[in-house]
């Protein structure tokens, strides 16, 4: 009787202790997390971040991503008007194909803007008619610099004036005037020249005209010519971009499957049930730990010193890191194989190699295959990142376009392509996994 009572109080004590511990834990954990977040708040200087942030960069980036600008430019030293998309040489209009909203005369240009305004460049004089504000006339001379017809002490904040430069920014256009050049930027939606550049005969032709209309270029049939001009588009470089995507996939493919093929035999050495010798097992495991621990970043740096930048370097970096990861995963899978099947094969008189081939491999192939295919998808992402460091594939194009800080529509294009590529690889590897493991 007393014994039962003792054990009863014992249990009660235990329960009370357990609940007290849980209560402590459930209060302590949020407190620790909160304390850590406070530490990070000050360590990362979150307050200073608001001052350092460049929101104008953000709005410029976002508006640039879905719109393009056409530049009407007058060289104020030599005279002469040029009209081009994004101010690039490859996007320069010639006299035959000026956009309809601009009229170019002899050292003059008349630009009709949306919402009813207009800009007239007439030699050194520029007249900007802003609806609801009035006419702004700006001129530049060698002696006086830039002058305005307005009271320069009382300018609205969208006009920026100094004696060397004036810039006027509205929703539809921006005008800058300096001693060297007059520039008008006119904004419009879309990615201009995405399909064809201005020198292509297919520019400004509709889809139906190209495929069903009469031959446009006498030397080539329409679909062939259109494809060639699209592929070799000098501004968007679709051909180079496709190669870059291919290089990225190639890095992921070679790295992943190369690593799997190297790791499989090595994994036998690291598995407890296949390598009875402790020394061998430990050595193999330390090799895997080392390969994984050095990490893709360091491998990339080391290898690019020897092999130079390019897809081979990226593929080898992925291969080395993943040999470590696969070695660990495969050896864990090997440790979990069922011994009965191996014994069954052995009882028919099979040699060790045959035992592995028919007793072990069929058991682990589904596990390994699904891991390898998971890695293939995540390595497509790694290949983009490694490409940005070593200089290969879509990662390189992406960082190049970002470092110039101006072609955000190209950056957007590459980001969309990368996301589509990763998603495609994700569904492809998922499909292959289902097909190879469940089917057959």
């Amino acid at each position, binding site marked *: 009787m007393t014994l039962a009572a003792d054990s009863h109080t014992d249990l009660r004590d235990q329960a009370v202790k357990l609940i007290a511990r849980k209560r402590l834990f459930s209060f302590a954990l949020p407190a620790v*997390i909160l304390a850590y*977040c406070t530490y990070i708040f000050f360590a*990362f200087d979150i307050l200073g971040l608001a001052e350092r942030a460049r929101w104008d960069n953000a709005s410029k980036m976002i508006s640039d991503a879905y719109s393009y600008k056409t530049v009407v430019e007058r060289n104020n030293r030599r005279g002469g008007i040029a009209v081009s998309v994004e101010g690039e040489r490859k996007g320069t209009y010639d006299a035959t194909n000026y956009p309809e909203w601009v009229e170019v005369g002899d050292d003059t240009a008349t630009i009709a803007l949306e919402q009813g305004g207009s800009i007239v460049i007439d030699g050194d004089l520029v007249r900007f008619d802003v609806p609801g504000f009035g006419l702004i006339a700006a001129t530049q001379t060698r002696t006086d610099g830039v002058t305005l017809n307005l009271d320069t002490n009382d300018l609205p904040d969208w006009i920026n004036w100094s004696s060397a430069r004036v810039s006027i920014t509205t929703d539809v256009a921006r005008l800058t005037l300096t001693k060297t050049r007059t520039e008008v930027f006119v904004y419009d939606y879309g990615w201009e020249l995405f399909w064809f550049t201005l020198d292509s005969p297919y520019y400004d032709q509709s889809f139906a005209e190209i495929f069903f209309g009469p031959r446009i270029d006498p030397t080539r049939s329409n679909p062939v010519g259109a494809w060639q001009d699209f592929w070799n588009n000098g501004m968007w470089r679709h051909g180079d971009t496709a190669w870059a995507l291919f290089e990225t996939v*190639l890095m992921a493919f070679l790295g992943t499957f190369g690593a799997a093929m190297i790791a499989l035999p090595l994994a036998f050495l690291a598995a407890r049930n296949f390598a009875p010798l402790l020394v061998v097992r430990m050595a193999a495991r330390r090799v895997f730990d080392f390969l994984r621990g050095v990490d893709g970043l360091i491998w990339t740096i080391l290898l690019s010193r*020897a*092999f130079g930048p390019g897809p081979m*370097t990226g593929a080898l970096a992925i291969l080395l890191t993943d040999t470590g990861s696969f070695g660990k995963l495969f050896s864990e899978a090997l440790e979990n194989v069922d011994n009965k099947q191996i014994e069954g094969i052995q009882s028919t008189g099979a040699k060790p190699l045959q035992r592995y081939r028919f007793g072990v491999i069929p058991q682990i192939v589904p596990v390994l295959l699904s891991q390898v295919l998971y890695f293939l998808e995540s390595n497509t992402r790694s290949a983009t990142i490694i490409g940005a460091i070593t200089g290969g594939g879509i990662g390189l194009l992406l960082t190049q376009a970002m470092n110039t800080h101006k072609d955000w529509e190209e950056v957007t294009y590459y980001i969309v392509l*990368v996301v589509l590529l990763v*998603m495609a690889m994700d569904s492809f590897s998922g499909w292959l996994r289902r097909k190879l493991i469940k089917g057959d």
Partner: protein
Amino acid sequence: MTDMNATSLDVTRDHYLALTRQRRLYGGLMLLVFVLLLASGFGIANERNAGGFLPGLPQIFDFPAEVVQEAWEKRANMPDHLANAFPALIETINIAAIATLTGGFGAVVLSLLSTRGLAPWPRLIPVFRRIMDLMRAIPEIVTALVLIYVLGGGPVPAAIAIALHTIGALGKLFSEVNENADLKPLEGLASVGATWFQRMVLALLPQVAPNWFSYALLRFEINIRASAILGFVGAGGIGYELKNAISWGQGKFDEAAAVFILLFLSIVFFDQLSSVVRNHLTHGSKKGVSQ
């Protein structure tokens, strides 16, 4: 009668052997195609690389040898270099930790919203799933570079970029865990009038917390590597130190060696730590660590 049996057996055996031969042929063909793909792939990659594989192979140890040699010559400076680079390492680990923490919370929320049977708005499940897919598909480096342009260099863009990716990656894993949870405790709580939040915290969380924690820990280890890489493109931390030390070239290789050592040791440390803790969580404490 026996005659017929024998012939039918023969037919069956022939059929079986033909089938086996066919299977073997297909398997061999697939293997051949695969090997050809791999070989030609390496050929193309080699061709498009700046330096070839074979000419580069003898030089592969040149750079490590230079670094080791210089580090050894100036080994007296090594403790100083290690101490100098240590704050950067802490920053890298902080980036990974806060990104895993915030990303983990985001993943918990999104995974609950996108698991059938738990979601408060079942019609929106596909929407939340697509959001997670998108977050997972965008490489961290892309988000980080865009954010660096807006927010300036430093740890915050890297932390946000890694956190966003973590939400997508962990959200998928968490929702797979949630799907395997037993719904009976949830129903029990619902029958006594518990709100959605109470049901999640009191009935679901105890079931799934160990698995969530295990995945989050694995992610933390991955995020440390990612945060080192993002430092290399300008987001601060040890990657940035590494880039500086390497671009200085010879004469600074002892600093590079110190960074290499720190990075390697911390990655190995967290790799081992997470594998020990995860083993503990999945197999219980008694079995211990497999070695």
